[in-house]
C-alpha cells in the first residue's frame, strides 16, 4: 500500500471564493458610481448601437503596491526559433504584457480595470439620484394604465418564470426535514414560479420634447455632447416611467420633427434660428398635448451661436414654453470657439424656478447637466 490517500469530499458549502467575488463586484459597482461622469460620456457606450453589454473602464480597483515600471523594464521571452533582434512582439494596447499606458511622468498611469456592465445597469445606477421633477397628477378622469408586476409566487407556472431562490429554499427545507444527505436535490414539488399580476398605475402622462441644434456651428463635439445627454435622458425616462412620450425636434434655421434614429444620427448644416424650434414645440403642444392633461418637459441643446436678431424672439417663446411646461431646460455647449453674445446671456433674464440652464464645457458636463435637470425634489 502506498503512503497516500485519495478522497472526494462534499465541497458544496465552501463558498468563500464566490463570496469574495461578490464583494469585489460590489466594489466595481461602487467604482462605476464614483466614475459615472466619465463613464456616461464614454464613446463606446453612446456608439454601442443597441449592444446591451458594454465594457466600462474603471480606475482604482487595482491592488496597489510598490512595483517596477513595466514600460522601463527589460523582459525575457521565448520564441519558436529564429527570433531576431528588432522583431516586434506587439504594439501598445495589443497583446504585449504591460501595455499600461503612461508610466513615469505627471499623468496618472492608465491602469484600467475593465468591467462589463449593461446599459440598463448603468441607467439604474444613474437613476438612484435622478427623476423627472415637478411631476403632477394631470389626469382628471383618473386615466389609468395597465402594467404587469411579478408579485406572487405559486406552485404552478411557466418554466421561464421559475423563482430560483424560492425553489432552492423549498428544496433545502424539504431535504432538511427529511434528514437527507444531499440537501441540494431539487424535486418537482419544490418548484416555485413567479406569477404576474396586472396592476393599474396612474399614468404619469409625461411628454419630453427633445430639441437639438444641428446647425453648422455645432461641431462634432457639441453634437456628441447633446446626443449623449439625450441618450441617457431617453433611457432614464423609459426605465422609470410608464408611457413617456418623447418628441424629437431638430433645427437649424428651420425646425422639424424627426424620428429617434434620425435625431441621434443625422447631422445638418446651415445657420441657426432657435426660435424656429421653440415655435414648433409650442405648436405641437397646442395640437397634441393639452397642458392640463400632460406633464410637459422641454430640453434644448445648442452652442448658443444664434442669429442675434432672433434672440429676443427666443426669450419670448421660452417664456411661453414655461407657461405650459413643468420644466424647461437649456444646455449650452461651450465649444472651441467663443461666442460673446450667446443665448445664455439672453436667458439670464428669465427668473423662473422651472427654468434650468447649464453650461457644458467637457464630457463630464453631461452628468452634471443630467443632475441639474433631473434633480430629485424633496
Amino acid at each position, binding site marked *: *500500500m*502506498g*503512503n*497516500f*490517500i*485519495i*478522497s*472526494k*469530499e462534499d*465541497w458544496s458549502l*465552501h463558498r*468563500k*471564493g*464566490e*463570496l*469574495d*467575488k461578490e*464583494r*469585489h*463586484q460590489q*466594489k466595481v459597482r461602487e467604482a462605476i458610481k464614483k466614475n459615472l461622469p466619465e463613464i456616461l460620456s464614454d464613446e463606446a457606450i453612446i456608439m454601442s448601437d443597441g449592444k446591451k453589454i458594454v465594457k466600462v473602464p474603471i480606475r*482604482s480597483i*487595482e*491592488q*496597489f*503596491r*510598490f*512595483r*517596477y*515600471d513595466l*514600460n*522601463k*523594464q*527589460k*523582459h*525575457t*521571452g*521565448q*520564441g*519558436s*526559433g*529564429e*527570433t*531576431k*533582434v528588432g*522583431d*516586434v*512582439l*506587439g*504594439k*501598445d494596447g495589443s*497583446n*504585449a504584457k*504591460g501595455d*499600461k499606458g*503612461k*508610466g*513615469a511622468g505627471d499623468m496618472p*498611469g492608465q*491602469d484600467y480595470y475593465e468591467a462589463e456592465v449593461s446599459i440598463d445597469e448603468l441607467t439604474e445606477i444613474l437613476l438612484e439620484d435622478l427623476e423627472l421633477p415637478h411631476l403632477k397628477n394631470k389626469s382628471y378622469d383618473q386615466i389609468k394604465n395597465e402594467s404587469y408586476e411579478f408579485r406572487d409566487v405559486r406552485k404552478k407556472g411557466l418554466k421561464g418564470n421559475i423563482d430560483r431562490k424560492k425553489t432552492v429554499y423549498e428544496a433545502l427545507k424539504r431535504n432538511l426535514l427529511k434528514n437527507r444527505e444531499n440537501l441540494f436535490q431539487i424535486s418537482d414539488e419544490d418548484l416555485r414560479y413567479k406569477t404576474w399580476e396586472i396592476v393599474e398605475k396612474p399614468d404619469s402622462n409625461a411628454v419630453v420634447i427633445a430639441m437639438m441644434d444641428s446647425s453648422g456651428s455645432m461641431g462634432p463635439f457639441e453634437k456628441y455632447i447633446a446626443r449623449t445627454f439625450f441618450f441617457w435622458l431617453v433611457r432614464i425616462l423609459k426605465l422609470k416611467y410608464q408611457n413617456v412620450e418623447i418628441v424629437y425636434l431638430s433645427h437649424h434655421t428651420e425646425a422639424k420633427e424627426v424620428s429617434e434614429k434620425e435625431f441621434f444620427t443625422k447631422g445638418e448644416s446651415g445657420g441657426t434660428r432657435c426660435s424656429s424650434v421653440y415655435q414648433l414645440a409650442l405648436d405641437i403642444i397646442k395640437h397634441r398635448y393639452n397642458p392640463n392633461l400632460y406633464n410637459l418637459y422641454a430640453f434644448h441643446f445648442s452652442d448658443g451661436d444664434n442669429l442675434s436678431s432672433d434672440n429676443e424672439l427666443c426669450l419670448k417663446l421660452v417664456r411661453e414654453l414655461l407657461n405650459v411646461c413643468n420644466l424647461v431646460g437649456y444646455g449650452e455647449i461651450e465649444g472651441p470657439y467663443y461666442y460673446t453674445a450667446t443665448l445664455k446671456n439672453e436667458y439670464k433674464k428669465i427668473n423662473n424656478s422651472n427654468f434650468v440652464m447649464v453650461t457644458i464645457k467637457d464630457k463630464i458636463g453631461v452628468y452634471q447637466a443630467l443632475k441639474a435637470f433631473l434633480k430629485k425634489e424633496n
Partner: protein
Amino acid sequence: MEELAYLEKTAEEIEKIASNFGLDFFPIRFEICPAEIIYTFGAYGMPTRFSHWTFGKAYHKMKTQYDYNLSRIYELVINTNPCYAFLLEGNSLIQNKLVIAHVYGHSDFFKNNWHFKNTNRQMLETMSVHAQRIDEFSFRYGKEKVEKFLDAVLSIEEHIDPFAEWIKEQKAEKKVKDVMTPYDDLWQEINPIKREKEKEKKPEKDLLGFIGYNGRYLEDWQREIIFMVREEMEYFWPQLKTKIMNEGWAAYWHIRIMRELDLTEVESIEYAKLNAQILHPSRYSINPYLLGLKIFEDIEKRYGREMIFEVREIDSDQSFLRNYLTKELVEELDLYNFQKVGSEWRVTEKAWEKVRDNLVLTLNNCGFPYIEVTDGDYAKNGELYLKHRFEGIELDIYYLEKTLPYVFELWGKPVHLETVVDRKNVLFTYNGEKHQRKLIEKSG
C-alpha cells in the same frame, strides 16, 4: 467510487516508480475537487486562507478563464506534511496520471530543497486559525474597517525578510518566556525592546515587520493582522524563490514516470498533447515548466543524475539560472530580451549572457522592488523614511503614489520614499493629505 479505486491503483503504481527513482516525498493526500474549489485555492494560495476581495477578484479571473476554456489548473499542491494535492474533478484518467506523477515531483522538492527548511508544514491549520481570528475581528470591529486595514497591509505584504534581526530577537525572547513565569510579559512594559530599536538606524528590509513591531498607532488586533499576513508571506516566499526549479523538477519527473507506465496508444497521444500544452513557450514571459525542465535535463546530461538531486537541494531560481543557463540552452530555447521601444514591444537582445543576466536580475527579491526602512524617526518626528535600493529599473510612479497612503495608514505619520527617477534621486512624501516630490542630493 469505481473511479477512486482506479485512481488509487494508479497512484500506488506511480508512487512505487517515484520511490525507485529516488524521490523522497511527504505522505500525500489527494483530493478530487470541483473547479470552483480548485480555483478558490489557486486564488487564495491555500484552502483555508482568510477572506478578502482581492482573492475574490483573482478567483473570478481564473474561474472565468476556465469557464471559457482558456486555461486550466489540473492540480494544486500544498507544501505541508502531509502534503495536500487537489485534483480537478473531470480530469481524464490520463490527465490524472500525469498530475499525480507531477505532484510527487513537487512533494519531493518541498521536502528537500534547502529554502523550505524552516517552512511551517502545518500552514493549513495555521492559516485556518488566522482566518478565524480575522473573522472575529470583522465581527468585533466591523467588516469594512478590517477590510480597509487588510487593503493597506496587503499592499506591502511582500516586503518582509525571513532573516530579520528583530525576528531572531523575538524568537529568543519567546524562548526565555517559555521557561519562566507566565507574568514575564509585564517586564516588556518596563523595558520595551521597540524603543531601543527605533533609535537604531540600520536599514531594515522587513517593512511589514518593522511597522508591526514599531508602529505606535496600531491597535492590538491590527498588529496581530500584520503578523499573520507576514507569517503567511514567509510561508509563500520560498515558493516564489524556487518557482522555475520546482515546476521544472516536477515536469522532469512526470515525464520520466509516465514513460514507465504502460499507456495505450490513445493514452499516449492524449498524454503527448497535454505535455505539449504544459511545455508551450511563451512569447512575453518565461514558462517555468519548460525552462526548469530543460535546465535540469542539461545538468543531467553534463554531470549525471546525482547532480540534479544536489541542485534541487541547494539552489534557488536565481542561482539555478546563474549557474546552469548556458549559451547552448539560450540558443536552443530561442530566449530573448524584449522591451518597449516607442509604442512597440521589440526584441532588443539575443546575446546569451544578456538574457541570462536579465533573468537573474528580474528574479532579485522575487521580482519585487527592494525597499528598506532607513529611519523610523525621521525629522525627529516619528516619520517613516524608506529607501528603494535602485537596481537599474525604475518604480511605477503611479503605483508608488497610490501605495504610500496605505503605508501612511499603517504608520500614522508622514511617509517618505527615496528612489531614482530619470537618474535623479527623488523623494516622494505623503503626509496624510497630499503627495509631494522633490529632488535630493545624492547620498552616495
